[in-house]
């Protein structure tokens, strides 16, 4: 390969990590009210390097380093959002959302409602979510289900670089508060750089792989897991459809129920713990509204209900695996 070809290839390929910064930068260019705040996001360009280039391009009046004060970060973002800005706040690890949970649970999602619609809160809280990297119990959790317990939040969790850019655009333009989960295990993954003005409407699931025998519903890191399982199942003649939900709120049940009309079998793959996981909500809607579409029980493949362990050999026992998904699908073959 020549040097020129290498350069050309790089411009069309982007990592998930780069897509985060790219997605934010595109919105900052088109809307001067978009501002960023968070720990180490400025000159240091983020501990996960998801804000590379932002401080350099937009300067210290648009990209603000904060102290380690999660309540102040999210609370200030809320006050700014209520008064004419569109803040993008970073909470370094999603586990730390617990440090500012008052804002995520009590303040941001409720203020519009409890004031009778007098104010809006157009902000994005971005956070690095999920396990698989050996960060231990307090830096590895998939906590998208925490946000799902609170009406009034939109919840985004992209699985690939193009979706990161398109969903970031929609999240920042949204007049409603959005919690945006960036998966740590996907940061190095690569994909095609999306064209300019790439916007993905919130609440539109993607059928990532069409199939006829079983529907596998996934989100963020479990999308590649589900796709790998579908590849393996295809070798056995099982045609699995993989749906990437992209968002938990709005939740695209139209796509899920539409798929089940054809497949009649459902496996849900979630990284958050089985207890209280988002798959329970999806399953309950299917049980309630899609019971007659089903030929078998709904299977949920979720994390074990323990804190995330440190060692790889232990973490692999907790987080959903390809083998776990194929086993669940095969169990449904009996029906």
């Amino acid at each position: 390969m020549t040097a020129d070809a290498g350069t050309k290839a790089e411009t069309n390929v982007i990592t998930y990590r780069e897509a985060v910064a790219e997605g934010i930068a595109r919105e900052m260019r088109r809307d001067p009210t978009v501002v960023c705040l968070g720990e180490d996001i400025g000159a240091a360009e983020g501990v996960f390097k998801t804000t590379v280039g932002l401080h350099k391009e937009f300067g210290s009046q648009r990209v603000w380093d904060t102290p380690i004060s999660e309540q102040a970060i999210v609370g200030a973002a809320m006050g700014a959002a209520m008064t004419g800005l569109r803040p993008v706040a970073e909470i370094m690890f999603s586990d730390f959302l617990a440090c500012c949970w008052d804002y995520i649970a009590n303040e941001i999602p409720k203020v519009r409602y409890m004031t009778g619609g007098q104010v809006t809160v157009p902000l994005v809280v971005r956070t690095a979510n999920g396990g698989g990297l050996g960060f231990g119990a307090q830096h590895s959790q998939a906590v998208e289900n925490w946000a799902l317990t609170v009406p009034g939040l939109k919840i985004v969790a992209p699985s690939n670089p193009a979706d990161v850019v398109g969903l970031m655009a929609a999240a920042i333009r949204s007049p409603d508060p959005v919690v945006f989960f960036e998966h740590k295990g996907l940061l190095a993954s690569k994909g095609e750089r999306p064209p300019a003005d790439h916007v993905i409407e919130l609440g539109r699931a993607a059928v990532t792989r069409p199939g006829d025998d079983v529907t596998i519903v996934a989100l963020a890191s479990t999308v590649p897991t589900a796709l790998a399982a579908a590849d393996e199942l295809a070798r056995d003649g099982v045609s699995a459809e993989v749906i990437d939900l992209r968002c938990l709120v709005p939740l695209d049940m139209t796509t899920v129920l539409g798929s089940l009309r054809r497949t009649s079998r459902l496996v849900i793959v979630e990284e958050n713990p089985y207890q209280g996981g988002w798959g329970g909500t999806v399953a309950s809607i299917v049980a309630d509204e899609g019971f007659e579409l089903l030929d078998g029980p709904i299977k949920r493949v979720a994390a074990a209900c323990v804190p995330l362990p440190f060692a790889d050999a232990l973490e692999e026992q907790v987080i959903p695996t390809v083998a776990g998904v194929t086993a669940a699908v095969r169990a449904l073959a009996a029906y």
Partner: protein
Amino acid sequence: MSDGEELLALYERMVLIRRTEKAAYDLFMTGLVKGTTHLAAGQEGVAVGASAALRPDDYVFATYRGHHHAMARGATAEECLAELMSKATGVCGAKGGSMHLTKASAGMLGSYAIVGAHLPMAVGAAWSAKLRDSGQVAVAFFGDGATNIGAFHEALNLAAVWKLPVLFVCENNFYMEYTPISEVTAVPNPAADRAVAYGLPSEIIDGNDVLVVRDAVTRAAWRAREGEGPTVIEAHTYRQYGHSRADPAKYRPAEEVEEWLKRDPLNIARARLEKLGVGSEAIAAADQRAGQVVEAAVDAAKNAPGPDPAQALTDVWADGGAAWRT
């Protein structure tokens, strides 16, 4: 406007709030106000004095004891009482209640019922004002009890580091709910003594003297607009009712209550009015006007319709709806 006329207007606004709080208490005791109330009778000087020093487009954030702040910024007695009485004409359409009175159109961006939560919000509004170069300031009013929660400290530090146009106004009424603040706080002045740790200037003032409050907030707002950063104001005041609902506040010594009732902000304002040559007839007329407004407000709120039940499923999202799935 002469000094006397200006003070008389502030006095009338305080009387209006006092009468509204009395009405709220009576309506609660007769079962027409449900849930809870946290009345601010006795603390009107802080809200009215501060409001007199602010621009109409400045931002105010208050606590669940916030009726006086909503009214000082322009919410009417009628829309506040209607809110308390669960009426469609309430200032939040009966979705907020006593603890969440909000009048966004008047820059009163809410009353928040999680202690201390709104201090970072005020910091954010001040940050927004600074970035937009609007010359606005943001004010967070909070109780002495809020000075022991983490959000207070995170907010003061961030506001100081970013040198934001924000005022932290503590209404120190000496009790965090039922417990004397001195029993649970490591320093004698819960807000002012903490300001030092963040390199912020502070003032301890008589919060029951509306002119003292007005002047202190004027100074702090001027500093903020000049780019000099935040100020902490600790205003000593006293609530005349209990903490909430029908709390008789028996944990407060009778002599203490008696002493503070003598220093009622209305008494202090009346004494000042007399010194300024405002006659007792003018004061009585202000009392009467305020009384009439509140009487009419109670009647109107009582006669107002309840909320349309369909309203329960509106206002979650900016599009007015509540849809979370397809």
